[in-house]
């Protein structure tokens, strides 16, 4: 699910109603770009969240193979859960904002 958010992020940045500047709209936002607009901020957040999830998976597997302690497994899975919850909450907000705009009376 998170993987689907990342490619959609440039679109999110473009549909932002506060960006009246046409140059920002036409430019795709790369996650690595160190710009400060909303889209790239979201992209960075999502990349972090994905990293946390991947780390949790790796540590869980290491835990099953007796290579990581219970504390490490629980801690990383909890961190992953937290970032997933945050990502879901932010996504819901973004979608809600998008729908709000699409319902705008013209």
């Amino acid at each position, binding site marked *: 699910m998170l993987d689907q958010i990342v490619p959609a992020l440039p679109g999110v940045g473009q549909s932002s109603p506060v960006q009246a500047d046409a140059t920002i709209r036409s430019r795709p936002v790369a996650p690595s770009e160190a710009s400060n607009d909303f889209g790239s901020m979201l992209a960075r957040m999502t990349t972090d969240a994905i990293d946390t999830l991947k780390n949790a998976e790796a540590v869980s597997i290491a835990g099953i193979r007796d290579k990581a302690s219970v*504390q490490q497994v629980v*801690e990383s899975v*909890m961190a992953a859960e*937290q970032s997933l*919850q945050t990502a879901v*909450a932010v996504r*819901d907000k973004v979608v809600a904002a998008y729908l709000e705009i699409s319902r705008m009376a013209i």
Partner: protein
Amino acid sequence: MSDPLQISQKISAAGLDAQSHRMRIIAENLANAQSTATTPGGDPYARKTVVFSNKFDDVLGTNIVGVDQIGKDPAPFRIERNPNHPAADANGNVKYPNVNMLIEMADMREANRSYEANLQMMKQSRAMVMMTVDLLRSS
């Protein structure tokens, strides 16, 4: 990483790790409470001690607790007379480990309580993060 709540969770996780190491040492001490030497007059198992220290973690940019060193208790060994024992010296005395069950039990309880405290700390900071994220959701 700069979120203080997440850092506090990591610090608590380090505390859990330290306390579990302490538990391991206590288990070793208890398990070896009767471990004598195999040679006549040799030294038996010496009680292990664990030292914690506050170390700087580069990734977190803060201090976390960790096991600094595992030392040996210099207390004198318990001596019992048992001439038939393989570890008995010329006088028939055997050195037994300087492990005191009562001290180990008290230590174990303390490790247990510290573990609990760290868990509670983790729970609370997690609850605070979740409360804040819920702010996004329920409006």
